[in-house]
């Protein structure tokens, strides 16, 4: 007798399974879970904390907040950040002072761990939400984050 009850039970479970997929088939008009990516660029908004790339914000006077302390360079596990600095002369005090020449960021090596941003004492760098980083030439992924002729924002070092 278990022969027939096996068949009955088997068919029942199969039909239960089909009812699940069948339900989704009927309601498939409601919308897919997939996104049609390049088409929805306008509406696609990344979360504020999304880690796309490291950026260095500048204000309208072309000033940034990086003092060149190199803490991020030390914190980085992959050698993604290289800070090229030299000593400039402070105009107000006339003392020699460390300032950044180039903040080099190798995006191709970055693992988006966030340790550099975590460790930065002046909040000079932060996460950018751009994730479309594919390029044809790998060398273009090496970026200089500080803009040309930018300088340190006054008051950051205090």
């Amino acid at each position, binding site marked *: 007798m278990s022969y027939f009850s096996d068949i009955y*039970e*088997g068919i029942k*479970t*199969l039909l*239960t*399974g089909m*009812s*699940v*997929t069948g339900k989704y088939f009927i309601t498939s008009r409601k919308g897919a*879970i997939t996104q049609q990516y390049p088409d929805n660029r306008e509406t696609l908004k990344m*979360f*504020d*904390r*999304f*880690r796309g790339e490291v950026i260095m914000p500048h204000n309208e006077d072309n000033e940034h907040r990086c003092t060149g302390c190199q*803490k991020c360079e030390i*914190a980085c*596990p992959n050698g993604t950040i290289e800070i090229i600095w030299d000593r400039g002369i402070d105009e107000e005090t006339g003392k020699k002072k460390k300032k950044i020449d180039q903040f080099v960021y190798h995006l191709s090596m970055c*693992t*988006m*761990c*966030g*340790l550099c941003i*975590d*460790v930065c004492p002046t909040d000079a760098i932060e*996460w950018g939400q751009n994730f479309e980083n594919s390029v044809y030439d790998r060398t273009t992924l090496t970026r200089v984050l500080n803009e040309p002729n930018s300088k340190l924002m006054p008051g950051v070092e205090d």
Partner: protein
Amino acid sequence: METEVVHTNFKSEEYFINMGPQHPATHGVLRLLLTIDGEIIKKVEPDLGYIHRSIEKMCERDSYQQIVHLTDRMDYLSANINNEAVCLAVENALQLEIPERVKVIRTIIGELTRISSHCLWWGVMGMDVGALTTYFYGFRDREMINDIMEETCGARLTMNYNVPGGLMLDIHPNFVKRVKDFIAHFKTKLPEYDRLLTGNVIFKKRTVGVGVLSKEDAISFGASGPVGRASGYSCDVRKHHPYSAYDKVTFNESLKTEGDTYARYLVRIQEMWESLSIIEQLIDIIPEGEHRVKTNAVIKLPKGEYFQKVETARGELGVYIISTGTKSPYRLKFRSPGFSNLSLLNHIAVGGKIGDLVATMATLDLVIPDIDR
């Protein structure tokens, strides 16, 4: 001697087959050398190392903060729990007092990670036994967790959210609401998982009695996580060596005694329910307070040896640190769950068919970077 020769002449021929490193069922770059007689498997020999990055050697030159981010890349499906393991080891060594808030959030995030890992496993399990649709249903639910993670941690897979001393950022204001939404959503979807796959007669035929692992063997082979628990071996680190906030919540260790593929499947499904209940218990009582304790910029552990176990989605992850008092560990060993679980594959797969091997491997839930480290 001569009779033996005659006998071997009539022996059916065994042959080798290379399963992997590129094969749909090995979930990554695992290579299995199968010795097969017809369809019957005579021997399984894993060949590893296709993505070995020598994380243990890298740890010997990195600071402790940097080590945390490397653990993301081991068992990437339970990245947060791996992070937590290293952080706990470092915090215990430094004897830091961790705020309650951090503990609770770590537990919630850890359980979310577990659910998301099991969702992916469920989808892939279905796919391995041939039900391709499960993959998308599993991923649909996992997507919600990924969104929660992305909003709070900033990344979907390799979060690096834990730091020694607490959490890198406080939780996002939307976190609690989103988690509650997810719980409500997932509670309606889990029974659907059962209806689609768990009860299915073909699925049961494929899994019941396949790849049986006895309790003694499970302990001897160092099986942990759902693999061990399906054999009736109580090995939940959250129960036996509670860490973070697991001593504050009540949950059942899902145990089965059959030890076959179906039992391992059921244990994981049960674990998803338990994880949901743990999150439910904690989500309303996240204490106020600091999300992080100040540590030195350069963490130097006191000289000594430290061991920390956590329960990842795959089983017991051990972090063994030998410190000589410098900024990097002298030796750091990860006892990864997948490595031990893989070692018993030969033991349970022999005698089955190729289809059985695939089903068994799916329930071992191997993540190759976890094995290769």
